[in-house]
């Protein structure tokens, strides 16, 4: 196996709203024999709220620098952290002047561009690889799954690691663990509305509704995703969407690491499946 040890950036939602994503990521990588070294004292990447690129570069230089000291590539389960790490890495690698300027803010921001930022899905499918994962599977997750990628895995092109309109990595992983992908291409990469949740809740709810509705109509048992903001919007706010728009979905939303964890035989509690807001018990019945 090509990867044995990685720096791990859990991201802010890992501490509360996306606790189950954090738990399942750690459990899955432990099972796969990849050591995760949590970036010591990591900071927020600025998310989508830091619109000034300089702020993004400085914030992310710190996390990159900590991982670089250990000479480890840095992995995150959060799509937005990934996007910010990757574009900072690109910008700092290409611009020596900017590197020097950021280092001058504080010595802890000295980053030399020697490591690579990765998203969990990228590491699983491209670095560890389907063969290696397959050799460790002990159960079949016989679910109909709507694979939902959201925005930042295939967009923008400078940081993407999957196709912008028809990404495949999650589809492949779901098939690998015994699941079936329902037709979902129209919604795979559509924005969940998360970034508008607190300023234009009405739009955000409509955007979430479209995704939930399509999954339901396609006969999905659950939606699988890879971003904590999508998780917050589609899972934690699902009852609010239902109430506001007078609809009923009761669509379980799971992180892809939770599904993989089940196939690897990891206990559902360890994967945090009791923490998803929409009940996931029905999913567990289909793990054989």
């Amino acid at each position: 196996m090509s990867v044995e040890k990685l720096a791990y950036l859990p991201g802010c939602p890992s501490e509360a709203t996306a606790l189950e994503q954090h738990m399942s990521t750690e459990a899955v990588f432990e099972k796969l024999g990849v050591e995760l070294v949590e970036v010591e004292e990591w900071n927020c990447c600025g998310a989508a709220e830091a619109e000034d690129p300089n702020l993004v570069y400085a914030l992310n230089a710190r996390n990159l620098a900590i991982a670089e000291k250990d000479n480890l590539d840095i992995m995150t389960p959060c799509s937005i952290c990934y996007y910010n790490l990757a574009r900072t890495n690109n910008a700092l690698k290409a611009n020596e002047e900017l590197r020097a300027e950021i280092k001058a803010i504080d010595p802890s921001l000295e980053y030399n561009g020697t490591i690579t930022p990765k998203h969990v899905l990228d590491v699983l499918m491209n670095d560890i690889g389907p063969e290696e994962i397959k050799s460790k599977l002990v159960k079949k997750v016989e679910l109909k799954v709507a694979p939902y990628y959201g925005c930042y895995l295939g967009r923008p092109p400078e940081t993407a690691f999957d196709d912008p309109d028809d990404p495949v990595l999650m589809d492949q992983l779901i098939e690998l663990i015994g699941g079936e992908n329902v037709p979902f291409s129209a919604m795979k990469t559509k924005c969940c509305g998360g970034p508008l949740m607190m300023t234009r809740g009405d739009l955000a709810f409509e955007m979430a509704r479209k995704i939930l509705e399509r999954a339901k109509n396609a006969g999905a048992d659950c939606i699988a995703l890879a971003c904590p903001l999508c998780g917050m919007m589609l899972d934690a706010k699902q009852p609010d969407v239902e109430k506001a728009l007078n609809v009923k979905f009761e669509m379980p939303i799971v992180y892809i690491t939770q599904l993989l964890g089940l196939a690897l035989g990891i206990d559902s509690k360890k994967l945090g499946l009791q923490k998803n807001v929409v009940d996931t018990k029905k999913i567990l019945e289909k793990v054989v």
Partner: protein
Amino acid sequence: MPIKTWELDPNFKNEILNEQGGEHLTACYQCSTCTLGCPITELVPSYNPRKIIQMSLLGMRTEVLSNPDLWICAICQTCTARCPQNVVVGDVLAVIRRLAEKAEEAGEIKIESPRPLFETAFLHTVEKYGRLYDIGLAMEYYPKREGSFVAGQKAMMNDYMGFGMRMFLKGKMGPLGGHGLFKGLLASKIKQRDVMEKIFKWVEEKEK
């Protein structure tokens, strides 16, 4: 909208071109691919990134900067990914939003959206603690948006009462998850908060 040629600001496009992310504005050939694929346009037909770019190129500074539509972009990057001219539409819009904030500070326009308040409240928690603190963000944002503490609390309860209860009952916030009494309720602070302060100060200096 009628175009008053005597009110155009021919330098406006240069303001955008000079900012990081705005460099490719003039490559736009108005094909509308950005707008056709936009999930916001799907819901709000008047929302039109192509038009915002064209108005910017024409120099319709005030109209562009005070356009409330700037603030309903979900930053999903679909426009950027699909643009055949590599305009980096999403970044161009971000540049325009930042110019709008500066224009508001200078008293030139009024922004009709709570989004700048939200982003500022978000970033305040990062500056203060090194990490996002959801509750701190909400406690700053809602009162400012609603204009008073009481109205803010009311709006916050309306939006987040159910959500908060779910987080509590699922043990993601509070003691029920067995991760500690105040899990997710108190701010998670990093030790090097002085570095955060330095970063934000540097950004502020650079913006001047």
